[in-house]
């Protein structure tokens, strides 16, 4: 589908270009490191895989407070909708092993209010020992009012959970899924889950009215450097993030730069990241998320890429030659 730039996209792109090229002098972009690691199944091998992956990224978490933010959507014991609890527990153990002062798991589901029941149905109580002691329902957490440093939507200030704002390291742990409103939901969209339903409702409808893409970019401005670990062992294609079908990919994708991680996931899904509005907005244009500006390690993209089925409204996002 041919698509012209909106005024907002043009302005955002121009602003990004201006930022990247002070007074006409081009500054080199420091490539963000993104790793693609094979993980064929949700089994005990994940613990070692995640530990090694985090070591490669040289995260310094000794004495720090880490918050893992999975994506919990539905009462579903299967593997394609929610971030798998075994992956979250593997990350939990890895960060503890790296000397973190505390590791907590925190999530604020978008439309199901009974968060602990949802986590139970998704298998978290079985996999994570004393789950209730380490879990924070972000929908009902204490809040502080925050204004994004850069604002793309009309949201203005947002009340956000203290657990997340007070973390030394926030780790976004989404599922690799298509999304029926924005094309794909990955580590940046996953941060919708930090917006408290207790203040904004279920779903967090003010974000939708303010523009989903713009709200994602706002949240990226508030949390610009979360670490991201994307659960692409079994993703979801078609009418995600709820009604889609499981898509086995067998990978984890991780990195410090959520825009670069999400762009890499899009390429694995054979979605053109440069056509993804929120990625363009949040990264200030295209340069930052082009393939040559991402230092990718681990598996090569061609070795793991597999086209995700897209609903008709989003087929224009498909990468050419897919």
């Amino acid at each position, binding site marked *: 589908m041919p698509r012209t730039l909106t005024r907002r996209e043009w302005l955002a792109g121009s602003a990004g270009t201006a930022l990247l090229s002070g007074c006409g002098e081009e500054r080199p972009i420091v490539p963000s490191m993104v790793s693609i690691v094979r993980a064929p199944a949700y089994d005990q091998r994940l613990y070692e895989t995640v530990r090694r992956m985090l070591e490669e990224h040289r995260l310094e978490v000794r004495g720090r407070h880490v918050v893992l933010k999975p994506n919990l959507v539905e009462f579903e014991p299967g593997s394609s909708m929610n971030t798998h609890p075994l992956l979250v527990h593997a990350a939990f153990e890895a960060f503890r092993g790296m000397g973190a002062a505390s590791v907590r798991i925190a999530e604020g589901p978008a439309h199901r209010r009974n968060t602990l029941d949802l986590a139970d149905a998704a298998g978290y109580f079985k996999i994570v020992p004393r789950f209730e002691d380490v879990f924070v*329902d972000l929908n009902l957490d204490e809040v502080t009012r925050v204004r994004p440093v850069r604002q793309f939507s009309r949201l203005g200030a947002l009340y956000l959970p203290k657990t997340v704002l007070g973390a030394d390291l926030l780790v976004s742990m989404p599922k690799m899924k298509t999304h029926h409103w924005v094309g794909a939901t990955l580590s940046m969209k996953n941060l919708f889950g930090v917006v408290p339903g207790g203040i904004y409702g279920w779903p967090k409808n003010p974000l939708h009215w303010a523009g989903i893409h713009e709200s994602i970019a706002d949240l990226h401005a508030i949390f610009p450097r979360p670490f991201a670990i994307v659960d692409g062992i079994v993703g979801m294609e078609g009418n995600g993030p709820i009604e889609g079908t499981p898509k086995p990919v067998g990978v984890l994708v991780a990195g410090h730069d959520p825009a670069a991680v999400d762009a890499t996931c899009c390429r694995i899904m054979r979605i053109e990241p440069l056509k993804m509005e929120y990625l363009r907005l949040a990264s200030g244009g295209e340069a930052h998320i082009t393939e040559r500006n991402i230092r990718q390690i681990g598996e090569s993209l061609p070795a793991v890429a597999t086209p995700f089925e897209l609903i008709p409204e989003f087929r224009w996002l498909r990468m050419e030659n897919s």
Partner: protein
Amino acid sequence: MTIGILADKQNRDGGWPYVRGSSWIEPTAYAVLALLAAGETERARRGLRWMLAIERSDGGWPPKKGIDQSTWVTALVALLPPEELGASAHARAIAWLLGTTGRESTLTYRLREWLLGNAGLSGQEPPGWPWIPDTAAWVGPTSLAVLALDKEYRRRPLPAIRERIDSGRRFLLARVCQEGGWNYGSVRALGYASRPYPETTGMALAALRGVRSPATDRGLAVAQSFLGECRSADALNWLRLGLLAHGQLPVGYCHPLEVTDRTLPDTSLGLLVAEAEKGRDFFLA
């Protein structure tokens, strides 16, 4: 026993948390209703005093102290007995509800959509209630607002209240899922049928008390099937309340023992539903 939990968990300011921490309106409103049902008026009144202290100037209530927005929780305040809350505060809560609709029902929004060629000026959905003003209406807050207004109408049968109850119920009836029951939102999203959820199905059925239609019959059938398989205390409370409202809760129904109350609203609602099963429905009078 469970009333004892409510007593233990009451904060010093008089309100209740969801689990622990600071006081919120939702757990406090349900705890106050449960305590009043149990005759524990002193504790309930401490809760009421905290609630009254955070009322906003527009007559609505924020979800908790320090939030500068009145929201859906005003419906829960309106469910409280006016003689305990205070008649004027209660009347302001009702007025706030009567003046609140989903953004898609406002004249400004409809006019804008008409000017953009997206919709006609008439023929839109009946107005429901949003979680937070200036956003869309949803099944959950609409059900709670209808419950509050229905309770008020039994006390004060005013046409303006009747009109909003009826339109809220029409909103719910327009949102019945293809397979019966209620999702939290639309019947379809981008052409795909939405699935019903147990908690929203129970809430909608409770709000549709006295409404007989094929849609409620299908909703009741879905609720019966959810009742057998659901293991969420919150969802089961609403399913029981919804089925009770239509006289369809199976005789001798027993709450599954393995179901855990996760939050204080689960505990309070459980107590209120148990009272309703005995014929003392605090959502009615």
